[in-house]
């Protein structure tokens, strides 16, 4: 018995590799030309952008491969293949938090010279910062993202400015027999870390030190834990909060249970399928922690070029096309993802289909980033484990535990939960 387990695993790995290589070989041998394989999350209208770029491309063809829907699954597939030196991946759609890890491991190429200048030209500061590691540019921002407070205009006249105000308003609505729940991402995953990070920054706190090697978890972080605990145990929290990802939150809001939702701007494009609901959907800046400023965690996707790509020049060229102003505008209008090139926000064509662009631009100016460290995945896993379920947080004790386990995670020493 003892051998079979390992043997099965290896056999499975071997056959998976065989399938992968044959599939990739199939891609490459289309018309004898160069194929640039782009790996990105499933973005509904992205194929159209790829087609645009293929029409303009000189001597290569871009093929869009869809990664899994959830961020963890996307990262897993990429790092697994990069660790094995897979040459079949050229352009990678990276979540903004992965830049440091992949750059440190030497799996992605630095943007230099003319390509670098063209990426930096006209791109907003916060998204560009997420593409840098140790002063070098490793990615080209494709879209950025900040969460906004979404609310029902037919139930709420003035949007709340703070979490406390929001909980109060929601509670009042519920007592009046109206939908008053607040939807947010409380599942044990990155979404919970994003929520927590925004609270910490708003409370003026720090989780990980500036250079990404020291766990801090100061009083501001404790304050954030208190707010999260209060929210999770209040009467406005959705019963499914501790199992809700972005889409669960969106669907619950669309189903008419909630008055408020903390979510990314894609919900606006998604809501258009339900005109009845969409006409009452309003947005406001992210609620602040009492006494602090409103700040939201910046998200988004950057393009990187694999260090193992056999066609780096064509790959960089493809990246420049995929993220150009025209294509960013298309993605913003059709897929709801906020652009990273500032001029796109001022494009008159954006006004009607993308009305929340001013709020996004405004929020971006004061956006906060998540800890920058190659061990970000470990940091995120530890944070989401300790924070989950949010209702069981005990601010002081949770903060102490967070400090020790984060330090281990940063040193890649401890056991990941």
């Amino acid at each position, binding site marked *: 018995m*003892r*051998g079979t*387990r390992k043997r099965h695993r290896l056999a499975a790995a071997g056959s998976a590799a065989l399938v992968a290589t044959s599939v990739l070989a199939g891609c490459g041998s289309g018309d004898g030309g160069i194929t640039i394989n782009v790996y990105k999350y499933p973005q509904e209208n992205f194929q159209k952008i790829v087609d645009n770029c293929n029409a303009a491309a000189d001597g290569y063809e871009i093929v869009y491969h869809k990664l899994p829907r959830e961020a963890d699954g996307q990262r897993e597939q990429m790092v697994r293949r990069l*660790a094995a030196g897979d040459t079949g991946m050229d352009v990678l759609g990276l979540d903004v938090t992965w830049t440091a890890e992949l750059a440190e491991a*030497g799996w992605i190429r630095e943007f230099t010279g003319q390509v670098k200048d063209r990426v930096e030209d006209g791109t907003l500061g916060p998204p560009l910062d997420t593409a840098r590691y140790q002063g070098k540019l490793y990615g080209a921002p494709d879209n950025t993202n900040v969460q906004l407070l979404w609310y029902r205009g037919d139930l709420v006249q003035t949007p709340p400015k703070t979490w406390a105000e929001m909980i109060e308003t929601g509670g009042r609505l519920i007592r009046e027999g109206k939908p008053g729940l607040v939807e947010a991402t409380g599942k044990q995953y990155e979404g919970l870390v994003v929520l927590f990070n925004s609270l910490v920054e708003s409370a003026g706190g720090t989780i990980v030190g500036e250079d990404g090697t020291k766990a801090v978890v100061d009083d501001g972080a404790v304050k954030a834990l208190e707010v999260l605990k209060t929210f999770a145990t209040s009467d406005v929290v959705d*019963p499914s909060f501790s199992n809700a990802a972005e889409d669960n939150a969106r669907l619950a809001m669309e189903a008419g249970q909630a008055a408020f939702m903390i979510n990314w701007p894609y919900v606006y494009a998604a809501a258009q399928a339900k005109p009845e609901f969409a006409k009452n959907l309003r947005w406001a800046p992210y609620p602040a922690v009492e006494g602090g400023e409103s700040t939201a965690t910046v998200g988004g996707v950057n393009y990187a070029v694999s260090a193992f790509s056999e066609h780096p020049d064509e790959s960089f060229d493809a990246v420049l096309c995929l993220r150009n102003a025209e294509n960013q505008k298309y993605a913003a209008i059709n897929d709801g993802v906020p652009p990273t090139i500032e001029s796109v926000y001022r494009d008159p064509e954006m006004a009607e289909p993308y009305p929340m662009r001013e709020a996004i631009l405004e929020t971006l100016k004061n956006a906060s980033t998540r800890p920058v460290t190659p061990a970000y995945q470990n940091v995120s*896993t530890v944070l989401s484990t300790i924070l989950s379920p949010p209702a069981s947080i005990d601010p002081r004790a949770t903060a102490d535990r967070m400090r020790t386990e984060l330090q281990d995670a940063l040193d890649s020493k401890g056991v990941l*939960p």
Partner: protein
Amino acid sequence: MSQAVDTGTAETRPSPKAKAALSEGKKAERRLGLLLCAPAIVIMAAVAGWPIIYSLWLSLQRYDLKFPDRTQFVGLDNYVTVLSNAYWWNAMWITVLITVVSVAIELVLGMALALVMHRTLVGRGIVRTASLIPYGIVTVVAAFSWRYAWTPDTGYLAETIAGGDPVLTEKVPAVMVVILAEVWKTTPFMALLLMAGLALVPDDLLKAAAMDGASAWQRFTRIIVPVMKPAILVALLFRTLDAFRIFDNLFVLTAGSQGTSSVSMLTYNNLIKGLNLGIGSTMSVLIFIVVAVIAFVFIKLFGTAAPGSDSGGRR
């Protein structure tokens, strides 16, 4: 009865002295046999042995793919880290709990199902096929349907049984759901193995016992179970080893959140998600050892027959 079988095996077993007295021809034949087996042995060693040795070697190192420059030999440090970690022990207890509870329930249900399938006179084929359906469904697919069923709003089980509670987000209910999914999925497999064992029970023996006035329960405990013992032990061994390595059900149902990780889930998190080859390999070596111990206990102490061997093993 069992004594008679024992003497039989003892007689057919060659004694060590007989081995020494081999003729030249026999020796040559044996050498040829070994030569013919050699390629298979080499391939087996490369395919099965090498990964085991390699993970042993990795488990002695600090080796994180994220920090390729910081690789170093650390001896048994990783074992100390893992074995003194609360997450690991939590995962170990969860795994043991899932294994013991689900296998126990499966044994009882599987036996009942096997008896029904064995005795059915009408529609025997349909009964057998129908009971095998859960086992035929891909685990991940089945797990997804369980997950949706237990998700509030969309799930019929969450809305009816759980009263709209998100059961998968709390540790105890989540583990219960995982066990339920395991039982639902693998009871048919257990029943199938047990049904093969039931075929070994001679009808004459049961009829004779009935004539002597043994009740149905007495016939079951005094005749059917003892005769079926080898089949039961093999079924238990298979299911225990399988249940101990539980991964796919958990991966889909909870992904190990709220402290529901099994040891395999935890290993996956450290190895694939965390890219920490040192710690991850340490965990897989530990799982390997536990699996080996389980197999050893079953085969040596309980006398489970190794699959394919002709004797009934030691009893």
